[in-house]
């Protein structure tokens, strides 16, 4: 993945400052910002997808095999939108 800014030499910079690797911001883990963590209860969950649709960080994804939604805690910033919007109250925020 891309090196951090202070390790890049000027010879390595593309003309015009073009970034050639799409979506490389994923190597920056925003999960460190989190102070609260969502706790998910698969039994109460009604699988309505609302948390997936409303997540601004694209941190929630479905796991069809185990029939649950999984959180990617590398990116979840702990905003609590999923917990607040969940119609079945299957998600609770707790201190991380």
């Amino acid at each position: 993945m891309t090196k951090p800014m202070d390790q890049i030499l000027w010879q390595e910079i593309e003309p015009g400052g073009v970034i050639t690797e799409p979506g490389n911001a994923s190597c920056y883990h925003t999960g460190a910002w989190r102070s609260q963590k969502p706790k998910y209860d698969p039994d109460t969950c009604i699988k309505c997808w609302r948390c997936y649709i409303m997540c601004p960080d694209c941190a929630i994804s479905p796991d069809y095999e185990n029939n649950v939604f999984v959180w990617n805690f590398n990116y979840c910033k702990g905003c609590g939108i999923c917990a607040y919007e969940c119609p079945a109250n299957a998600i609770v925020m707790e201190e991380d």
Partner: protein
Amino acid sequence: MASAVSDVSITETKMAETEKKKVIKPLKNFPMEEYINSGHRACQGCAEVLAVRHVLKAIGPDVVMAMATGCMEIISSPYPYTSWTVPWIHIAFENAAAVASGIEAGLKALKRKKRIPDKEITILAMGGDGGTTDIGFQALSGMMERGHKIIYVCVDNEAYMNTGIQRSSSTPFGATTTTSPAGRVAPAGQMTWKKDMVAIAAAHGIPYTATACPTFYNDLQKKILKAKEVDGPSYIHILSVCPTGWRVPLHKAIEYGQLAVDTGVFPLYEVENGVWKLNRKPKELKPVVEYFKGQGRYRHLDDTLTAEIQDKITARWNRLVKMCEADKED
């Protein structure tokens, strides 16, 4: 009688079983691909990045983006990183629409010379409310007048949030910002009303103009698809709640979007070829106080100011409903 009771109990147990066995069904009409990757540095609970996510999901991979400076540019591309998985260019505040016009003309020429395959490529220009209503206004007006086939999306969080909440011409009356603070001189904070950008865009006579909100994501995606289909410029104005600048709790961004629509502060409507149409019409508008409650930027408002705002909002809403109904009858 007894059999009836047992029947009921059987159906009840069946219902309970089916409830237990809820399985994740793939979503219809909601693509799974992400075009703005995780790892972007938006504030916690940002509804603006959510709006961008839904817009890009609706358009799909064949898109070229031109983005004015603003929150969405700052959070997605701190050098040497980028969150975008689609071709994307960052330009200055004032010329998102101008650069998008150039991209459109350039792609047209390349297609004509057969340098690139002849497939439909959507050009998406995007700006915040500062980049659209204040600084990028003349470029946008020019783009709409020349009739380029571009979707211009304004993600409106009602102030210059990324530089520290300065007022823009899209800031609503009564909101306090760092450059329009509420105090003795200006008891309301922002003393002017929000610029009606959608009406201005519609007055250019462009084929499609609409307002949207990420809370109503189906409506938002439908509008983007419609804008993609029309031949000519289209303008979509998206209200995106900013928990940092509006001073609301992090988890309430979606709820405030809903309240903005239901109180009539931000009605959802579209103007298609000059025909106005209301997309969501609540039976009865909620009082604006419900929308103001809990927002730190409206904390200073007293009853007289609230009543003044309520009057204006009701008048605007009535005028909009009247316009839409008149167009319906035609």
